[in-house]
C-alpha cells in the first residue's frame, strides 16, 4: 500500500467561466448582498435569504438569456458543523445549453425552504425525497410526504447525526454477522475436543493436483522476501507439499 503520499491537486477542467458569467447576471439583477458565489468544480450561486429563492429561481427560468427550463435535480446536504442544511438545485437550459447550480442555506433547527414546484412540476418528487432523507421542509409543497421510507419511519437518514432505530415494527435493523456463529461453533468444538483429550482433526487440503511447474504465489512472495537469508528452494517446496498432501 503506497498510500501515504496524497495525489497532488491538478488543474481542474475549465468549466468555471460560464458559471461565473451566469452568476454575474444574477448578481446584477438582485444586488451583491443577495447572492454569493461559491467556488467549486461547478461554481454555485448561494441565495442568502431563503425567502428570496422563488424570486431568484423564477428569474433564472424566465430570463431570456438564462432560460433554465430543465430542473435536473433537487437535493439536500446536512452541515452540522455550520449548523445549517443546504437545499441544492441543479439547472440546465435546453435553449442555451448552459448549466448552473443554486443553493440556499437554512438553519438545522428550522429547515424551511420555499418549494419551487410551481416553477418546475418535476420538483415535486425531488423535494419529497429531500424531505424524506435530509429533512428539509418545503413550504407550500402540494404533497410533502415521505417517498422512499415508510410514513412512520423516525428520523432522516442522510442527516449526519442520524441514529437508526434498533427495530421497525419488531423487525431488527441489524443482525449478527453469520461468521460469528461459525467462530462460536469452532470454539465449542475445540472445548469439547480438549475435554475429551482428542487430537485435532487433520487439516483438509484440496484434492486438485497443481499443474507441472506451478508455484504457489504466496510462497513465491515469501521467498522473495527472505531470499538473502534462506535457500531459494524453500518456497517451491512448500508449494509442492501443499499440493500433494
Amino acid at each position: 500500500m503506497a498510500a501515504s503520499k496524497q495525489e497532488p491537486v491538478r488543474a481542474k477542467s475549465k468549466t468555471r467561466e460560464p458559471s461565473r458569467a451566469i452568476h454575474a447576471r444574477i448578481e446584477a439583477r438582485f444586488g451583491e448582498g443577495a447572492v454569493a458565489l461559491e467556488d467549486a468544480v461547478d461554481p454555485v450561486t448561494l441565495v442568502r435569504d431563503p425567502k428570496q429563492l422563488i424570486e431568484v429561481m423564477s428569474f433564472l427560468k424566465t430570463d431570456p438569456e438564462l432560460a433554465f427550463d430543465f430542473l435536473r435535480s433537487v437535493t439536500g446536504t446536512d452541515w452540522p458543523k455550520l449548523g445549517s442544511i443546504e437545499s441544492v438545485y441543479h439547472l440546465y437550459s435546453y435553449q442555451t445549453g448552459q448549466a448552473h447550480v443554486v443553493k440556499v442555506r437554512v438553519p438545522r433547527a428550522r429547515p424551511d425552504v420555499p418549494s419551487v414546484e410551481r416553477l418546475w412540476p418535476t420538483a415535486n418528487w425531488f423535494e419529497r425525497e429531500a424531505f424524506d432523507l435530509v429533512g428539509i421542509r418545503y413550504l407550500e409543497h402540494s404533497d410533502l410526504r415521505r417517498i422512499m421510507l415508510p410514513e412512520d419511519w423516525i428520523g432522516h437518514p442522510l442527516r449526519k447525526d442520524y441514529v437508526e432505530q434498533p427495530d421497525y415494527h419488531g423487525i431488527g435493523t441489524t443482525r449478527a454477522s453469520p461468521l460469528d456463529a461459525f467462530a462460536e461453533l469452532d470454539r465449542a468444538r475445540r472445548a469439547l475436543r480438549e475435554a475429551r483429550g482428542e487430537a485435532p482433526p487433520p487439516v483438509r487440503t484440496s484434492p486438485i493436483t497443481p499443474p507441472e511447474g506451478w508455484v504457489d504465489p504466496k510462497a513465491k512472495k515469501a521467498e522473495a522476501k527472505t531470499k538473502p537469508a534462506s535457500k531459494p528452494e524453500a518456497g517451491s517446496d512448500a508449494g509442492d507439499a501443499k499440493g500433494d498432501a
Partner: protein
Amino acid sequence: MSTSANTSTKQGTISGSSTGSGSSTGASRAENSAGTPREEHMLLNMGPQHPSTHGVINLRVESDGEMILRVTPEVGYLHRSIEKIAEKVSYNGFMPYTDRVDYVAAMTANEGYAMVMERILGLVDEVPRRAYYLRVIASELCRIASHHVATGTMVMDVGAYSPFLWWLREREAINDFMEALCGARLTYNYMRIGGVMADLPPGFDRRVIRWLDHFEPSIDEFNRAASENKIYIERLAHLGVVDRDMAIAWGLAGPNLRASGVDFDVRKNIPYSVYPELEFDVPVGRGWCGEVGDSYDRYYVRILEMKESCRILRQALEGIPEGDTMAKVSRKLKPERDEAYAPVESARGEMGYYVVTDGEENAYRLKVRTGSFTATQIMQALGAGVLIADLVALFASFDVVAPELDR
C-alpha cells in the same frame, strides 16, 4: 383514497336493492354500465408484485370502471440507501454499488460515477484515450442490452411473447461479451476512477463485429414481427401523449424526452468521453404512427437508438487506439472540499452524479439523479383518462427500472 376502501360491498348493496338479484360485484358492474349513477370509485393496487411494473413499484389506481381517474405511484420498495452507503465506503469502494443503481445498464452507471470523480480530481484529460474508447464500447453494448429489455418487455406487456425471447437471445450474446470483458454478466464493476479495469480480451473486436453483422438485420426482423404489427401499433399510438413542454417541465430524460420531440442527447449536447469523435444521429420522435410523444414514439426511438449504438460500436472498435487503460491514480483518494455534477447518457436518459467531497476518504454527500425517477413521477399527470388495460402499455413505454428509481 379513503372513499374507495369498501367499494365492492357498498356497490353490492346498491345493485342488490335496485335489481333484487345478484349481490356480487360483477352484477353491480353490469348494472352500472346500464346507467345507474355511480357513487363509488374503485381502488386498484397494481403492484408491488405485478409483472407489468418491471420491479417492485406500486401504482395505486383510482378508477371508475375501466376508466382511470387518478394514478398515484408509491415507490421506495427497492430503496437500498445507496446514497448513504456512499458516505461510508471509500471512493474506489463505491464503484460496485453504482452497478446496483441500475443493473439493467450498469456500465453507464459506472461511467457516471467515474466521470464525476475524474472531474473533481482533475483527471479528465489524463484518462488514456484507449480507456475512453473501451468505455464507449462497453456502454454502447450495455445500452443495446438495456433497450433489448425495454422494447422486448414492452412488446410482451402488450401481448406478444416471441419477440421478447428473440431479444433475450441477442442480449445473451452481449452478456457473453461482458463476461469476456470483465468477468461479470450483470453487475460489471468494470470502470475505475481514471480508466477501466481490463483491456479487451483477444479476438473481442472480431466477435463483436460478427455479432453486429447478425444483429443489425435482426432489428428489421423484429420490426416486421412487432413494430409494424397492426394490433401493436393501435395499442400504443395516441396513448399517453407527452408534448414537448410537458416533457421538459416534468424533467423527462433520454429516449422519453427525445420521443417528445426534444433533440437532446447528453452525448451530443454536453459532450463527454470520445463521443465527439464518433459519428451518430440522435433519433427524435416524429409521430411515426400517431402523434409526437405518444407511447409508440417512446418505443420506436429506442429501436432506432439500437441502430445508432451499432454504428458507434463499429467506429469505436475500428478506431480504438493503442495505449494504457488506466491513468496514474493513487490508491487512496482524498479530494479537498469541492463538489461537482456530471451527467451521462444512460439507457434511461440523463444519469447525473452529484458529489460533495470534504478531504476525507469517503464522499460527504452523493446524489444520483436518474431517468426512472422523473419517468415514474409523470405517471400521476398522465394516468387520468386512460383505460386500465392501457396503463400497462403506457407504463412500459417509459422503461422504468425500479432499482434505479429507488436507489
